[in-house]
C-alpha cells in the first residue's frame, strides 16, 4: 500500500467521526498550546533579563577586581600592565561610592560612579538626552530612575541644572557610611540623562574624583578585548597577575541555566495537558478500532496485509497529533501575542515607554513542538494500530 493511499484513507476515516476527531485534536492543541505559551514565556523572560544586562560591548568586556586590595592593588601600574596585554583593546578603571543627591530641596541616597567619559558605553550608559561629561570637569550624567526619585519627571528640564552631591569615599560601596568617612561635596551640572529606568546612579569624571578624593587606586577595571574569542586567554593572563576576573558571559551562562530549568518546569506543566491529550488519542483510536473492526476484516479479506492495517491506524493518530500540534502552536503564539499586546497597553497606560515581548516563540521551538507532537501521536497510535493489525481477518469479519 502506498503512503499517499494510506494517508488518504486514514484522512477520510478521521473525518468520519468529525465531532470526536475535532475534540481529540482540540485536546492535543490545548496541550501543545500550553507548552508553547509557558515555554515562550520562559524564553521571553530570559531574553528580557539577558538584554537588560548584556550589550555587544559588554559581551567582550572583563571585569577585574582585587581579591585583597591591601596586597594586590589595582593601581595605575597594574592597569598599565593589563592595557599592554595582547588582544586588549581598552581598559576602563572606575570607582563607585555611596552618595547623597540633593535637587530642588529633595535629598536621596544612591551611588555615584567615577569613570572616564569614553568608557561610559561599557557601563551600558545610553543617553536619553544631553551629552557626555568632560573628563576633569564637575559635570554629571544621571540615570532617569534617580532623576525621577529626585522629583524630576522631565529629562530635558534637568539639563544644565545643579545637583548637590555628597560623596562618601569608603573602601567599598557597601561599607557603612559614618560621619567620620572621608567626604567630598560639590555641586554638579547635569549634562546628560541615562535612559536606564532600573538603575539609580550618577556618573562623574574619574579624573576629577581621584584628584578631589585623593584616590590612587581603582576598585574595578573593565577590560575590553578585541574579539569575543579572546575573552578566555586574556582572563587567564589577568588572573595570573593575582586579580579576580568575571565576565558578563559567566552571569549570562548562569541566567541561561536557571531559565533552562525554569523553561523545562514550565514545559512539564504544559506537558500534563499533552499527556492527557495523548490518552485522548488512544481512547479515540480504540473506539475507532471497535467501530471499524468489521472493516478491518473486509480489508484483510481483499488483500490488506497486517502492516497496511497498522499503517492506516497509525496515520490517523499522526494526523490527529499533527493538526493538534499545528493548531496548538497557532493558538499558543496567538495567545502569547495577545498577552503581550495587553501588557504593552498597560505599560503605556502607566507611563512606560518601552514595548516588551514577554512571549517569544523561536521558529525552531515551534517546529520542534510539531515534530514532538507527531512523535507522541505515533507512540500512542501504535497500541490501537497493533491491536487492529493483530485481529484475525475471519473474526473481524464476523464482528458487526
Amino acid at each position, binding site marked *: 500500500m502506498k503512503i499517499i493511499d494510506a494517508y488518504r484513507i486514514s484522512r477520510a476515516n478521521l473525518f468520519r467521526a468529525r465531532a470526536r476527531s475535532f475534540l481529540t485534536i482540540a485536546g492535543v492543541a490545548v496541550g501543545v498550546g500550553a507548552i508553547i505559551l509557558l515555554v515562550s514565556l520562559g524564553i521571553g523572560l530570559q531574553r528580557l533579563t539577558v538584554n537588560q544586562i548584556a550589550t555587544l560591548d559588554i559581551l567582550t568586556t572583563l571585569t577585574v577586581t582585587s581579591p585583597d586590595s591591601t596586597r594586590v592593588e589595582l593601581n595605575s601600574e597594574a592597569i598599565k600592565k593589563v592595557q599592554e596585554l595582547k588582544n586588549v583593546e581598552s581598559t576602563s578603571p572606575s570607582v563607585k561610592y555611596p552618595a547623597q543627591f540633593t535637587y530642588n530641596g529633595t535629598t536621596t541616597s544612591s551611588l555615584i560612579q567615577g569613570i572616564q567619559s569614553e568608557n561610559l558605553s561599557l557601563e551600558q550608559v545610553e543617553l536619553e538626552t544631553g551629552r557626555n561629561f568632560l573628563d576633569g570637569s564637575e559635570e554629571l550624567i544621571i540615570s532617569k530612575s534617580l532623576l525621577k526619585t529626585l522629583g524630576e519627571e522631565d529629562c530635558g528640564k534637568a539639563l544644565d541644572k545643579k545637583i548637590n552631591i555628597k560623596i562618601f569615599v569608603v573602601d567599598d560601596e557597601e561599607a557603612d557610611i559614618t560621619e567620620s568617612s572621608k567626604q567630598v561635596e560639590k555641586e554638579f551640572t547635569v549634562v546628560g540623562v541615562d535612559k536606564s529606568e532600573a538603575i539609580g546612579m550618577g556618573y562623574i569624571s574619574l579624573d576629577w574624583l581621584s584628584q578631589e578624593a585623593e584616590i590612587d587606586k581603582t576598585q574595578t577595571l573593565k577590560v575590553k578585548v578585541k574579539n569575543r574569542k579572546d575573552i578566555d586567554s586574556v582572563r587567564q593572563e589577568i588572573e595570573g597577575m593575582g586579580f579576580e576576573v568575571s565576565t558578563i558571559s559567566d552571569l549570562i551562562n548562569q541566567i541561561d541555566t536557571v531559565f533552562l530549568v525554569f523553561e523545562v518546569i514550565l514545559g512539564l506543566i504544559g506537558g500534563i495537558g499533552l499527556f492527557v491529550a495523548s490518552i485522548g488519542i488512544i481512547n479515540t483510536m480504540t473506539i475507532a478500532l471497535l467501530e471499524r473492526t*468489521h472493516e478491518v*476484516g473486509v*480489508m484483510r*479479506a*481483499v*488483500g*490488506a*496485509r497486517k502492516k497496511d492495517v497498522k499503517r492506516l491506524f497509525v496515520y490517523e493518530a499522526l494526523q490527529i497529533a499533527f493538526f493538534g500540534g499545528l493548531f496548538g502552536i497557532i493558538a499558543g503564539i496567538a495567545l502569547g501575542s495577545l498577552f503581550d499586546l495587553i501588557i504593552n497597553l498597560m505599560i503605556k497606560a502607566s507611563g512606560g515607554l518601552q514595548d516588551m515581548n514577554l512571549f517569544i516563540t523561536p521558529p525552531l521551538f515551534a517546529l520542534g513542538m510539531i515534530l514532538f507532537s507527531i512523535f507522541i501521536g505515533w507512540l500512542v497510535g501504535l497500541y490501537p494500530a497493533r491491536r487492529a493489525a493483530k485481529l484475525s481477518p475471519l473474526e473481524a469479519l464476523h464482528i458487526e
Partner: protein
Amino acid sequence: MAKNIVIQIKGVKKSFEMGKIVVDVLKNINFEIYSSEFVILFGPSGAGKTTIIDLVAGLDKPDEGEIFVRDEDITQLDEDSLAHYRNKRIGLVFQEFNLIPNMTALENVVLPLVFDNFSRRLREEKAKKILTDLGLNERFNHRPFELSGGEQQRVAVARAMINNPWILLVDEPTGDLDSKNAEDIMNLLSKLNKVSKRTILMVTHNLDYLQYADRVLMLKDGNIVNEIKNKKT
C-alpha cells in the same frame, strides 16, 4: 482438452470450540475443482459450507489436511503471503456485501488495487470499466447506503473481479436480495463463469440456483454426502 485442477482439498478437518463443547464442523473433506468450473456447495445451515469458503480464502486454517490452489498448499503460507493470495488469486463475495460504508462504489471497488500498489489513475480506470460492465456507470460516487441491495452486491462482485483473480469464492450471494436482484446476480456469476472463464466456488442452500452449477457438492454434518454433475458439463 483435459482441465487443470485449480482447487484441491485433501483430508480437511476443522472443529470449533463452542464454550465447553467441541463441534467438528468439517470431518474429512476431499474434493477437486477444475479450471472454469462453477461448483456449488449445497447443504443445510451448519453443514460446514462457509467454513470451506473461509479455508479456501485463507481466512482460516484447517486443523488437519491440505488445501492446494494451483498446486500451492495455502495452509503453509504465512500472513503476508496469504494477504497477497487473497489480493491477487481469489475474489470474495459475501452475503452481506461487506462494502465499506464511508467509501463510494468506486472507492470500494478499487480497494484491492490500493493494497496492490496500483496508481490512482490506472485503478480508477479499471474500476470504472468493470462497474460500467455491471451497469453501475451512474453509481460511481454513490455510497453503499445510497445503493439498492442488488447494486451493492454488484459492487461487491466488481470488487472481487477487479484484480482479475483465478477463482471467485461466493458465499450466499443472494441471501440479502429480493428474487429479481437475486436472479440478476446469479446470471452475472454465470456469465462471469461462461464468458470470462472464472472458476467459481459458491455456497448456497437455495435449490433454485443448483441449475447454474457444473457440479454440486452436497454437504451434511461436515461431510460431502453426494456429488451431482449437471448434464451441461
